[in-house]
């Protein structure tokens, strides 16, 4: 077949460029059902964000950002330690402009692989240097939201990082220079998430919080969100899919992801949520959830998920089993290390952490009472999971 004897397989989508928020949404509507339907105020910042927003942790294609913007997404979360995420977003800005139509959130951390969060003892200049690096990679002269990221993760999570005088001083200088607009704090646990975020909300230093928030984990997060609402602190939710262990389970009704999103967004104090978007298919699929109410069908879908995974899913942040074990085994921490091993792909980190624990799960095999299992309000089969954890996390003898 010759080049010009072609078969057209699809129509070109409507062109969009240089539009404001309202016209972004209008344009997105023109593209069909895959468009953002709802924008909500982000605390007292004066910003309104799309209820379904862009998690840029796996951002590999600048064209995906342009597509997302044309569907109405106006908030994107990136970080210097999300690989080339900032560079790719910068490519998009250089190529497409429309900087003022995109709210960019990034982090106080070093460039490179994940886990480069700045500790609390850094000089003011270090924080500023980090942001200058982000500005360069992003091809922009200002950042909308700067996060103190991942409070409560690993050895981090102390108040000295949250309330570092140098960090606060650096942010004030960046804001005065017009290089940063709002200060935020995020946590996906597993340690002290609610406590640290509540302190952040009450401190008055932060404009936005970003908690891990879903229908299965962190039962005290709604209290923090309510407090944030009272004080005008904006809330962006993350980790809304509760691990997304298996999303192909038959729900017989509403798709699981849409139900999980609408569960989070039914809280009026949550402005929006970020979810990792890596390709066109997931972009369209997630955006279809925008504006959907939480219904009985949504609950049924979540119930199906719970039924499939509840007994094997230790709720990070729960802690009901902490004092239950007569052998003094820290069940919650071991299952958290197992989560890093099995779900996060951080095997060696998890094994090293487990190796450093005084009491290990080797005693669980002979345990008859399984007091931890009795104490669990969610019916997690802790004994079986502890045996599995010991098997996975132990270094070969």
């Amino acid at each position, binding site marked *: *077949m010759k*080049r010009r004897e072609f078969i057209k*397989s699809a129509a*070109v989508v409507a062109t969009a460029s240089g539009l404001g928020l309202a016209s972004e949404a209008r344009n997105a509507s023109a593209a069909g059902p895959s468009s953002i339907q709802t924008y909500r105020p982000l605390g007292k910042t004066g910003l309104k964000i799309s209820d379904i927003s862009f998690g840029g942790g796996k951002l590999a294609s600048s*064209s995906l950002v*342009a*597509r997302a913007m044309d569907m109405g997404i106006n908030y994107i979360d990136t970080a210097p330690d999300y*690989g080339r995420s900032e560079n790719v977003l910068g490519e998009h800005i250089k190529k497409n402009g429309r900087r003022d139509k995109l709210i960019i959130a990034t982090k106080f951390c070093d460039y490179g*692989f994940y886990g480069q969060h700045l500790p609390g003892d850094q000089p003011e200049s270090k924080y500023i240097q980090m942001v200058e690096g982000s500005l360069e990679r992003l091809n922009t002269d200002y950042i909308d939201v700067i996060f103190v990221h991942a409070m409560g993760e690993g050895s981090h999570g102390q108040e000295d990082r949250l309330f570092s005088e140098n960090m606060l001083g650096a942010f004030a200088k960046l804001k005065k220079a017009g290089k940063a607009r709002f200060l935020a704090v995020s946590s996906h646990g597993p340690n002290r998430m609610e406590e640290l975020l509540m302190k952040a909300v009450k401190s008055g230093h932060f404009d936005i919080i970003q908690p891990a928030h879903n229908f299965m984990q962190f039962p005290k997060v709604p209290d923090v969100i309510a407090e944030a609402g009272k004080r005008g602190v904006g809330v962006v939710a993350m980790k809304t899919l509760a691990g997304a262990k298996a999303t192909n389970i038959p729900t017989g009704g509403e798709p699981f992801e849409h139900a999980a999103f609408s569960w989070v967004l039914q809280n009026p104090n949550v402005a929006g949520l970020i979810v990792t978007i890596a390709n*066109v298919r997931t972009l369209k699929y997630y955006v279809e959830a925008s504006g959907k109410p939480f219904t009985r069908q949504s609950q049924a879908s979540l119930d199906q998920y719970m039924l499939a995974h509840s007994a094997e899913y230790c709720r990070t942040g729960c802690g009901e089993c902490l004092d239950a074990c007569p052998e003094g085994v820290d069940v919650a921490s071991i299952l958290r290390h197992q989560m890093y091993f099995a779900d996060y792909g951080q095997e060696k980190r998890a094994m090293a952490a487990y190796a450093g624990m005084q009491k290990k799960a080797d005693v669980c095999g002979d345990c008859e009472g399984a007091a931890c299992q009795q104490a669990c309000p969610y019916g997690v089969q802790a004994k079986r999971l502890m045996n599995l954890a010991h098997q996975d996390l132990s270094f070969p003898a």
Partner: protein
Amino acid sequence: MSLSCGTLARGGLLLLLPLIAVAVYLDGQRYDPAVLRFNPAGDVGASALLPKEVAGLAMEGPARVYTTDNLFEYVNGHAEFFISLGFKSLTVAGYSPPGEARGKPEYTVDIYDMAAPQNAFGALAQESAGMSPQSIGTLGYSSSRSVMFIQGKLYVKVDSFAKGDRMTELARALASTLATAQPEGETDLPQFAIFPSLGAVANGRSYKREDYMGLEIFREVFEQAYERDGARFFAFAFTPSSGVEDFMIKAMEAIGDMGAEATETEFGGSRGILVHDEYEGDWALASVKGKVAGARGFSDPALLEAFMEELAGKESGS
């Protein structure tokens, strides 16, 4: 009765003999992986390539070498994976800041000799899932506690259980050392041989495991950057698991689903697809020698078509 000095000395030595024997015995019982696991065949793996000091760190203890016979001792449950890919030997060394050696190195370096660059790439491609690309070695990736890269036939992993703040620096220094130590001609990846050499950017190679150009069906893609007459563009290639013909049909559907315009055509006599994509620009695909090869990033569609003709007509390895 009196004893001579010589008799006293001989007696003293005799008394010391049991003590020396006990000391030798106890030392022999001390766990030393370098002794216990050293390959009896005498293969020193990549030991000779490892510097004693690098990136401000010093090697802690001797390097250990594993072969197909005992790899399971180090990567229990994962040995078959490496062996099936062509694994030859593994050299393991520890590095710590000078004077801080405590028997538990701050960094561990694993160097897998995979016998050929494509085998090393196979290991990297499997093990780097979810990691971020880094400009280290021929291809490199990293996560919070690991940096991995390939350099010729070697697949190298640097891990840290501690802060890991010098991990990338250590990996880069090792990559540089290993690059100069390998024979010429043993460093290239055959996957890149499909691309024309004219204008190929020296450090412009990359590998995208998934979602290339935001398309879910574009997986395990090799990309080569080009600069010609001041213009920068990219060529890419991959081998679809379902076969090229089947993939071309699926590609037409996927391109349509993403809202772009796809045109069936020919390049160099091979089946091709020309795409007009509002977001990605004009790009193209063709069936080339059992692979799917393509190009993107052109501002002039005529130049794209000309390059595709060149790509489809290129003899492998030329």
